[in-house]
């Protein structure tokens, strides 16, 4: 029996469809909620809880791509969402950004989860290029808000997902991308809730989250048959999700979940971890866990959550001392500790990149320190 309470919530139509997959895979082990403004989507998914928000504003027909409407819808019906979040330790929110409900409502729900004392992990897909600049702009704005609001944001561009699943028919492409994220999320949940032989706990996930500096990348690879481990590893490393493995090189911290059947061997695990370590930076902190599914014979999948932003060594040391200790699962304690971690991260960052404004009062606007170069805050790559 697990004492860690997890909630997986899909927000918006895309989010709801993704958690539909997660719900299928988890088979009731973890509560899965679908939150949307559109009644039709909710009717189609198999979530344990379905919440239709913003009925009074949208009449139940969805938000029509208006993020502002999505936000108001969530604010109207926040009480229903709060009821779901009571005593939750980890809230995994899944959303497709670019539309109305996913982009508008998710930041509001993340905030409510934070207030309820949960650690928040947000998995968000970014729109395809063909969806046009408008949706991309909406998604970018929502992404910025989410990055501020939640503890860790895993952003997955749909464009990269298509490269993974290959060019197929439209319904299949969408179904496969949703399936992939759904699987990855369910793998994360299983890692935490199931007593595996090599166990990965809530504390490990929290550590990746707190070290990530807020931005993570998701990687997924799967294989079948005799050389399933090799297949899965090769698929993962070649996957555009991790930019052909480049993300691993710069990542400071990653969490690896290996899901397989009862035939998963120690040799296979060693193979996979060797392959990953070879790609990763020397000082990268890797946490690993396995999930054994009886129905997964001859099948194997690797899920990787890798931090994108690199925090300094000194801070890593400070933080590792804290998180390796036995975890106290009372909501309040967790919250306090997490906040301390975030404050540290900011201090480090400030000293490093404020330049001539180092010793004077910072200009803080909407929670951003404007003295830090814009390209640093927005993570715009600069060719030196």
């Amino acid at each position, binding site marked *: 029996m697990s004492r860690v309470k997890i909630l997986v919530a899909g927000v918006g139509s895309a989010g709801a469809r993704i958690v539909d997959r997660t719900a299928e895979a988890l088979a009731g082990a973890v509560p899965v909620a679908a939150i949307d403004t559109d009644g039709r989507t909710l009717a189609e998914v198999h979530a344990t809880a379905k919440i239709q928000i913003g009925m009074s504003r949208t009449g139940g027909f969805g938000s029509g791509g208006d993020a502002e409407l999505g936000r108001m819808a969530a604010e109207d019906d926040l009480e229903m969402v709060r009821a779901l979040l009571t005593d939750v330790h980890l809230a995994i929110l899944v959303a497709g950004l670019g539309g109305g409900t996913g982009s508008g409502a998710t930041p509001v729900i993340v905030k409510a989860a934070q207030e309820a004392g949960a650690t928040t992990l947000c998995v968000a897909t970014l729109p395809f290029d063909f969806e046009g600049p408008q949706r991309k702009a909406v998604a970018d704005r929502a992404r910025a808000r989410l990055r501020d609001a939640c503890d860790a944001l895993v952003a997955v561009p749909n464009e990269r997902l298509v490269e993974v699943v290959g060019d197929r028919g439209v319904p299949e492409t969408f179904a496969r991308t949703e399936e992939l994220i759904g699987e990855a999320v369910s793998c994360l949940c299983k890692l935490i809730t199931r007593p595996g032989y090599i166990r990965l706990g809530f504390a490990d996930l929290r550590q990746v989250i707190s070290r990530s500096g807020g931005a993570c990348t998701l990687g997924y690879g799967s294989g079948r048959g005799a050389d399933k481990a090799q297949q899965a590893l090769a698929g993962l490393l070649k996957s555009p999700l991790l930019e052909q493995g480049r993300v691993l090189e710069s990542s400071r911290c990653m969490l690896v979940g290996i899901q397989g059947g009862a035939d998963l061997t120690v040799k296979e695990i060693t193979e996979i971890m060797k392959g990953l370590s070879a790609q990763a930076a020397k000082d990268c902190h890797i946490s690993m866990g396995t999930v054994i599914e009886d129905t997964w014979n001859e099948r194997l999948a690797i899920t990787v959550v890798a931090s994108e932003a690199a925090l300094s060594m000194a801070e890593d040391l400070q933080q590792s001392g804290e998180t390796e200790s036995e975890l106290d699962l009372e909501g309040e304690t967790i919250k306090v500790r997490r906040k301390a971690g975030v404050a540290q991260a900011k201090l480090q960052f400030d000293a490093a990149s404020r330049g001539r404004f180092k010793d004077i009062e910072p200009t803080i606007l909407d929670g951003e320190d*404007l003295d830090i170069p814009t390209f640093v805050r927005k993570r715009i790559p600069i060719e030196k």
Partner: protein
Amino acid sequence: MAVSPIVAVEIGTSKVVALVGELREDGHVVITGMGEAASSGVRKGEIVDLENAAVCVRSVLGMAEQSGNVYIRQVYLAVSGGHIQSVINRGTVPVLDRRVGITSEDVEQVMEVARAVNLAPDREILHTICRHYCIDDQERVLKPVGMDGAKLSLDVLVVHGVRTRINNTVRVIKNLPVAVQDVAFSGLCSALAVLRTEQKKSGVVVIDLGGGTTNYLAYADGVVAAAGALGVGGDHITNDVALAFNIPTSQAETLKRGSGSALVQATGSSPRVTLPPEVGFPGRTVSVKALQTVIHARVQEILTMIFRRLEREALLHQIGAGVVLTGGGAHLKGMVELAEQVFGLPCSIGTPINVNGLASVTGRPEYATCCGLVLYGFKTSAERPGGSSFFRGLWRGLFGRQ
């Protein structure tokens, strides 16, 4: 000469300027003297080193005295800084005697009430600008005196800032044998210098891109509709460049002025610029595209922040005459084009047009604030012939319809 000359001082983040202005018989304001020096002791528009700032101002005033051939005893002072904000307040009073209609006493009364805005105890009002009157339910009344009505309301725009910070700017001058006649918000001054009446009527935004602060002021329907400041300016652009390429600030400044642009113009295999070696700096080359990417990110952010604020006040549809960019930052290449992208409105660079005299001053956007302050001085002294006893007093009509 009927009116004594007015001296305006701006203690900016990058430079300290003093201008001497005279009012000619035909009503034109002519700049007859100036002093200028690189600033020290100022960061982001606020004083951080009183002594150094005072030394700076003293030498600048000396220069202005010499070139303007005046003896300076009192000055007008521009204040800036990210702490300056504005708020719209409405005051309402019942009309005293309905039989005679609204009298000037009612107007005085409503002004008193409208001014009494609830601010945090550490804040001080810089300007109270009358927008329009409202009689019962009739909005936008211009001159209410003599009209009939049961209650009279007045909308004012109150520009306010943190008292201690405003006082610190004033203190720089107080250390010298010079008195401060009045202080004014830099953004307001810039608007006075660069705008035409038609622009104010059709609605316009003035953005003054300074070294340490960016001030903005919006006119809608001929009256000031919003004003504010951000503690971010040209220094931040330079700092971003210095950090991005790990070069000294002085080199970053040269780079910004030489090859910098608010738009990323360089393409693909972009050219590189070479920074010559100097003492303690080995020299290096920098990709023009990377440089422009750094600058673009910062400038776009500044403009977008102002855009968002105006959007929040629901002002954007009232801006018919577009955006006027002024201040030293207006020299940055691509600035107008980027502003057009961000605001979706016609943009232009504003130079001080409402003053004459020294060509080195009147044609350049970086002197807009100081020129505007001279104008401010003449307008306020004309309105209150009593002199300067009414420090930071109520200021009526000047920004309303005339």
